[in-house]
């Protein structure tokens, strides 16, 4: 071997002995892969356990209990969801209702916009107590309503078309376009 060959060989050895610069994230990547392989292996085991057929013994009382529990879950879940969507504010039109009821102690506007609940939309009297008014936001459509005077007397709106009377007490109709 020649002298200059030895020098070249020594330089190569020194070069190979130099420490290699490693990506500092390498360890993290390796550990992530190892962990995922472990999870996949465990999941495969669980899946195999779930798929393996086996005989389950259940007493009659436990069977009835399970049936009752399933029924209770089905009963409870839908009741948590809103059954009827509230109308969007953009779709409503304010409508003023007016009725003359001199001497009345209280007057309510009752209709399908407040589920026919006389407590929800009380009307306000003017200074003389003759003219009762209220303004309510209505969605597009045809709404039936009536005035309830002193909680006992149903009065139709004289300024609006009458609705067919199904119940022996008058109602009126207001239509909101849209």
């Amino acid at each position, binding site marked *: 071997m020649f002298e200059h060959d030895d020098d070249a060989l020594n330089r190569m050895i020194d070069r190979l002995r130099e420490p290699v610069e490693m990506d500092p994230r390498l360890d993290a990547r390796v550990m992530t892969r190892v962990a995922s392989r472990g999870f996949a292996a465990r999941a495969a085991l669980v899946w195999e356990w779930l798929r393996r057929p086996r005989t389950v013994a259940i007493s009659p009382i436990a069977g009835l209990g399970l049936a009752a529990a399933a029924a209770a879950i089905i009963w409870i879940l839908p009741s948590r969801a809103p059954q009827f969507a509230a109308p969007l504010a953009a779709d409503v039109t304010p409508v003023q209702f007016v009725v003359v009821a001199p001497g009345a102690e209280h007057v309510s506007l009752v209709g399908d916009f407040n589920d026919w609940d006389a407590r929800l939309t009380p009307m306000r009297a003017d200074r003389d107590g003759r003219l009762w008014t209220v303004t309510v936001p209505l969605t597009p459509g*045809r709404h039936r309503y009536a005035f309830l005077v002193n909680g006992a007397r149903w009065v139709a709106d004289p300024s609006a078309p009458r609705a067919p009377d199904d119940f022996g007490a008058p109602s009126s109709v207001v239509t909101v376009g849209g």
Partner: protein
Amino acid sequence: MTTLHQVSALALAAALVGTGTARAQDPRLMHRLDSVTLASVGALMDSARAAGLPVEPLVQRALEGAAKHAEPDRIVAAVRRLAGELGVARAALGRESSPVELDAGASALRAGVRPEDLTLLRQRRTQSLTVALAALTDLVVGGVPPDSAASAVLALARARDDQIADFRRAVERDIALGAAPAAAAAVRVDATVRDITNSAANSGNTPRKP
């Protein structure tokens, strides 16, 4: 399957059936109707829902009856009648009709309008039918014969909602002043059609901006 398992399955099925019935009932009705009326109205609502009809008008009719302290039989009869009218309205107006249109169509039928006229209105009007149907109903309730009212509203099938509403108010005003209902509708519809035609012609002659 053993007998015990069959018993369990039956119990589950019974529980599920019971749950389905209860779910069909509207919570707003539960405290306003007695149990027998509630069951009858609930069955009518189930049938309507199964037929694809809106149930909200049925709920409101039952609530109206309850608020007015009507007899239970009367409430059930009113809900049943309305369900039938909604079905006829849907057949006349088409399956694409909105719940609001069906409700307005049911009112028109109740007033005496023929289903065929509802179908014609659907064919001729591209906009929502709610206001047109309401005007038709109100005219008939106000004394205009159903065929005259239908002819008038069909003549205005392409008018805007506010034009139809103005027409209806004008007819009602004329009737209140003593005009014969059919004549009032005929005169006012001619005037409204003339106004619409003139305004369309004027808007067409308006110079356009460069």
